[in-house]
């Protein structure tokens, strides 16, 4: 469904202590595309990332990177973990953290190298972090730290960039800036970017594709193909409506549907979703 995918997730299922967290998850993403992995808290987004990274074994299916089975040491993937805020006392400048993105997994002390310094400086500029390259990472704001982490993940020239809830700690404006930056990175550097989020709207303007996760299952495609009442109703296993309100998308349980709504509410502003006025 995607030409020469960089990441191909094929029928992946995961059981964690007897509970089925993911079931038959299937999607592909291509270089140069920004894909949103949307799902409520507990939908399995982080677990799916861990499977892609090789930190969690899948109980079914497989993951292929650039047409090959993934291996433990994988320079193809750059990763920014969830809820990451560095200790302010950590003696680490922004450029030190990005430098660890070049060869942080290698043994030994890094010898000063002009090439590495130039590469790190260029990457910090590219994410708009040049101004605070020499400051302690822990003292930077959430948005600034996010930029430095993106530079760290990107400096090893990966083909796939995974960001777990990068917008979670950011205010609206900082979030929009990070999203715009990621879209630019995807298009200019021909990197496949996969962003997980529990809110669909901040990613709407930039998403090339969407992977919508609910109840451990996923549907994927373009936003138009996926964010539709019939498709999401089938995914949730109960009727939902998709509303467009002033350019924002709301996924709400259908009128008269009294099924449990826990699966949906995090994907949209909860109060609105539960109000009968909006849903009818």
């Amino acid at each position, binding site marked *: 469904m995607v030409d020469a995918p960089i990441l191909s997730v094929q029928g992946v299922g995961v059981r964690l202590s007897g509970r089925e967290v993911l079931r038959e998850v299937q999607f592909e993403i291509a270089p140069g595309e920004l894909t949103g992995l949307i799902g409520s808290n507990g939908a399995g987004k982080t677990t799916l990332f861990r499977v892609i990274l090789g*930190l969690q074994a899948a109980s079914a299916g497989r993951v292929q990177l650039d047409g090959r089975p993934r291996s433990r040491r994988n320079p193809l993937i750059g990763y920014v*973990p969830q809820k990451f805020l560095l200790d302010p006392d950590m*003696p680490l400048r922004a450029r*030190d*953290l990005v430098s660890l993105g070049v060869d942080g997994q290698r043994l*030994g*002390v890094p010898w000063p190298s002009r090439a590495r310094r130039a590469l790190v400086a260029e990457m910090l500029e590219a994410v708009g972090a040049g101004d605070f390259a020499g400051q302690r990472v822990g003292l930077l704001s959430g948005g600034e730290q996010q930029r430095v982490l993106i530079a760290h993940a990107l400096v090893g020239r990966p083909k796939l960039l995974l960001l777990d809830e990068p917008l979670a700690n950011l205010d609206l404006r900082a979030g929009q800036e990070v999203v715009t930056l990621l879209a630019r990175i995807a298009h200019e550097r021909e990197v496949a970017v996969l962003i997980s989020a529990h809110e669909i709207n901040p990613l709407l303007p930039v998403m090339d594709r969407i992977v919508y996760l609910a109840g451990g299952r996923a549907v994927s495609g373009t936003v138009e193909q996926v964010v539709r009442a019939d498709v999401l109703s089938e995914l949730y296993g109960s009727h939902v409506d998709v509303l467009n309100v002033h350019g924002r998308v709301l996924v709400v349980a259908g009128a008269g549907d009294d099924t449990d709504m826990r699966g949906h509410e995090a994907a949209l502003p909860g109060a609105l979703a539960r109000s009968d006025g909006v849903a009818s």
Partner: protein
Amino acid sequence: MSPPSASLIASGFFASEAVHTAVVVGAVAAVVSGTVGVFMVMRAQSFAGEALGDISTTGGSAALLAGVGPLTGIVVIDVAAVAAMELVGIQRPRGRDLATGIVLGAALGLSALLLYLDTIYHNTTGAVVTILFGSVFTIDPSTIPLVGVLSALALTLVALLYRPLLLSSVSAEMAAARGVRVRLIGACYLLALAVAAALAAMTIGTILSTALLVGPAATALRLTRQPASAIALAVTVGVAAMWVGVLLAYDSFYWPPHGTGWPVSFFVVALIFVAYLLAGLPALLRRRARA
């Protein structure tokens, strides 16, 4: 005898063999402690360092009973303690303090028995005080080769682990995603920490060893914002405190009560504490200037 106030460096200081050993072993212990200590503070493993220092009491008292050198006993017990912590589960963030506490409790319980036996068989409490509070002047020069081997081991380990250790101290997940074997790296680092704690324990005493591990590192972290200079600064603070401490302790022979000399460990720890307080001054002044 010349009056003590005549010179800072008392006569005979450079001629004394005990001073030579103290200067060499003290410096080596400070270098290892400073290097390993910076990572310990960054990784929030100070409790493990403190515990290993305390556990050295068991090793020191066992060595006294067995009639072997104190450092041998301390290193054997500290490495065994690290292995036990690893087995109980120090690597899981939540299990970490628990594992450390359980091993610490067990080891200190054993040391209660060993110290009691020491006082019975050796009929002196002096040896026990030396284990607990150290005396760098009583270190046997024949220990120096072992000190050299152990410190080389610890420093080589830290140099080898440097980048993946730093990365996994920043974020275990980011390190794991890059293929770093976070648990293995952590275990190897604990081994270096055990050696550093053992050297510090032998030099300034098992109770005080934690000051040499934590103090210079914490001082350095107040003053610098990059890891390599933090290590250099911690080493400098540690070695300076050790050497000035040795000098003052030697001088204190002429201080009241005349003719005994104050414990060198007191000076070393006091100097480290002063350095830590002074390191807070720049930030304090900056805040004042801004207000």
